[in-house]
């Protein structure tokens, strides 16, 4: 993070577009008249979504709407680093460089950005005006590392499980004006396991108590001898299990049934 300054060149004026006005009205409605200033952050965000950045005339316009002194809006806009105080590319790419992403290859993504777009920095717009990029701290998608966030007119979306090649292809598509589907590029569902199936929840032993092991508590006052009854109990359970298993194989589906039911019951509880 560094000192944030307003851009050297500023537009002469700012006006909310018709769409923005509707959003502004929505947010202004939320607050009573004497608490209008509460809408300052939503309004700054709306202005940024409209123009891609927050210009100085926009701050003045927002100050007037929120009945605040200019300096108060200026304070807010400079405090929050998500407000762009200078023009950015049509697509602002924020590459996560924090440990999990870094371990999973964020450096490769950064190299692609540097090659494709140019120098790191929100205000360093690529020659075609389409992109600018910066490195950010953890965006909280570590299970899909490495990832980037791309902010543009459509919104702010995560693009996850990236490889340098995938990112490059994505940039090509964006440059060509195509839409790129957000989420993991591998098209896995959210952060589900990469392997097709992990039979964790389908293991009946998890639900009938058979997998339970008595563990001695670390600071338990019971001496080791007392653990004996526990070990005695275990064979009992072990006895029961083979007994169940000894019964005709036809019973196995029956044993599975309660396991299959359980999640269903749970859902109802939810």
């Amino acid at each position: 993070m560094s000192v944030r300054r307003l851009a050297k060149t500023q537009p002469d004026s700012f006006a909310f577009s018709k769409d923005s006005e509707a959003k502004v009205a929505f947010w202004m409605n939320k607050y009573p008249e004497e608490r209008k200033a509460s809408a300052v952050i939503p309004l700054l965000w709306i202005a940024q979504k409209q123009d891609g950045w927050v210009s100085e005339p926009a701050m003045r316009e927002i100050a007037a709407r929120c009945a605040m002194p200019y300096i108060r809006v200026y304070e807010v806009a400079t405090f929050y680093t998500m407000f762009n105080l200078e023009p950015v590319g049509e697509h602002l790419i924020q590459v996560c460089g924090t440990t999990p992403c870094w371990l999973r290859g964020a450096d490769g993504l950064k190299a692609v950005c540097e090659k494709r777009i140019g120098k790191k920095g929100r205000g360093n717009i690529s020659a075609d005006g389409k992109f600018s990029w910066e490195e950010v701290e953890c965006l909280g998608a570590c299970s899909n590392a490495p990832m980037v966030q791309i902010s543009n007119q459509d919104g702010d979306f995560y693009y996850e499980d990236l490889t340098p090649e995938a990112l490059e292809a994505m940039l090509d598509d964006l440059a060509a004006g195509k839409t790129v589907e957000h989420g993991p590029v591998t098209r896995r569902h959210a952060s589900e396991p990469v392997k097709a199936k992990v039979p964790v929840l389908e293991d009946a032993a998890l639900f009938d108590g058979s997998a339970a092991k008595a563990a001695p508590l670390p600071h338990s006052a019971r001496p080791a001898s007392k653990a004996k009854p526990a070990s005695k109990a275990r064979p009992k359970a072990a006895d029961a299990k083979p007994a169940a298993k000894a019964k005709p194989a036809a019973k196995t589906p029956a044993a599975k049934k309660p396991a299959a039911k359980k999640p269903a019951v749970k859902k109802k509880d939810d």
Partner: protein
Amino acid sequence: MTENTRTIIIDGDEVTVPQDYNLLQAAEAAGREIPRFCYHERLSVAGNCRMCLVELVGAPKPVASCAFLVRDMRGGPNGEPPAMRTLSPLVKKAREGVMEFLLINHPLDCPICDQGGECDLQDQSLMYGRAGSRYAENKRAVEEKYMGPLIKTIMTRCIQCTRCVRFATEVAGVPELGAIGRGEDMEITTYLEQSMTSELSGNVIDLCPVGALTSRPYAFNARPWELNKTETIDVMDAQGANIRVDSRSGAVLRIMPRIHDEVNEEWISDKTRFVWDGLGRQRLDRPYARKDGRLTPIGWDEALDIAAKKLSGEAARIGAIAGDLNDVEGLKAAKDLFDALGVASIDARQDGARIGARDGSSPRQSYLFNSTIAGIDQADAILIVGANPRLEAPVLNARIRQRWLNSDCQIGVIGEAGDLTYPYEHLGAGADVLAGLPKKRSGFIKTLKDAQRPMIIVGMGALARPDGAQVLRAAGELAKVVGAVSANWNGFNVLHTAASRVGALDLGFLPGEGGRDTHAILDGAGKGEVDTVVLLGADEIDMERLGKAFVIYVGHHGDAGAQRADLILPSAAYTEKNGLYVNTEGRAQLALRAVFPKGEAKEDWAIFRALSARLNKTLPYDDLNALRAALIEENPVFGQIDHAPGAEGVADFDPSTLGEAGEVSDAPLRSPVTNFYMTNAVARASKTMAECSAMALAATRMQAAE
């Protein structure tokens, strides 16, 4: 222990303090010193410097004493009173830690810093800091910010206490300062580095605990320990702010406020603070006489001879007008001389205000700020008539703003609708609105009637006009109707703009029987009916109207009066003489000499004493003490130093009999102060004030263009 107080233990000593004290105040009441940077008695509590940490017994960690109330303290488990420690090892360590963090990014440039020697950070790091530094890394550097011609910034030194931000927002009422960025990159600035548009901006220099905001005109001029400090009184407006004049070898180098809770708290206006460079420019340091159309230096002997010759003429053809900066002693000597000569045409109201009378027909309350300045803190409705307190008495205006901030006090204005830093109801522009107000049933009149302690403030803009006496009557009638004058409250107030005015009115420096007032003297001079006009520092009259009269100017600055003068008798400015000034409340205050008068200039009273000897009317006093004794004998109010009468004698005061009955015109009421920075000869001689004035004018023009 009453309901509002609580007994607590501070370092083992039991003290009983009010519940709403914070721990810092409680510790001070117990005689402990708590270091602090961000906390200030007259500003809101921010609690961000952490220097005032104390140990609260039972609390898991040190607490910021400025932000913790005595009321919220918890007693011991067995019913012991709550306890705090300010001298414990934990507190010492906490202070050392905070100080070390503050110094991480503070430059070690004390030898070249103007705050050096009077710097809170310097003092406190000596008292509460560690001996050495463990920080070897680079310090941060911050770009300078522009804040106007008065405030010099070295923002690298800033420790982000935000006192200046809070002052600008709360007291000055111009929310232009702010803290941008965050964390290590936090910086104090004005919006886009515009200069501050407040008349009180200089106070941030005093508030700044470090050398980040310092005085630009005073930059690198002197060290605090080299200066002679004189506690005196300001004359830039009629509030009579208490000031300290710092001088070195005959030159005034700066002016700072003194704390006086009933007058200026601890603020002064920019004009008061920065006018000092005007005291060294355009000075009249020797007598001059006009010879062949040019002012030529002459000796005192010759000058007094010329003056005596002119004043020994027919008394009816002589007039005298006193200006705004005169001390009472000088006016007394002048008045005694004119009385002895039989000159009745003397007037201290150079603006023609229709207040006061020599025959005692107008009571003192008719021209005083009777509620007193401290009384503003109790007012619950204020009507301002024909005044712009922001320009006429900025510190008083800040007090009104404080009242508005802290209570439901309603404010109405008749006259110009300017920015007063607080919202108000604009009732109209003309005096007819005031006259019609008592007959109304709803609106602001109801607010005034419902108020327990209503205030009506009448400015010179309402009184210094042809129908001033009628406006005074209208205001008095309104005061009566709304019950502004009651057993222990006098809500009828006159806000003066001239520091010398109330003293002159108390003295009776007014036309005697058959005498002319200011306008009549000027008219007479224009028509040739008045041959000789003595101007006692009167520069704000229209010199064109003096016609062919012989003008004797007794004053200290080469301003309008001196330019027109045929004879100049140089006198002392307010920092150069011991004198009495009576402020708008009627509070007599003693000003002390900081430096000697320039060149051959003499104190005003001494000039008239010398002149009286030439005229064979020798005044019966040879020194200032004898003069003061005579003064106090004549009017005891001059002996009651620092006493504001307030509601005294309110039982005999009927505001509805003030002034004269009659129609008031509907011409808009205009404040006499249009250019705050240029109201008197000293200010007009000041370069700093000229710069401020140019900036203010440019800002007004920009606004007009928009």
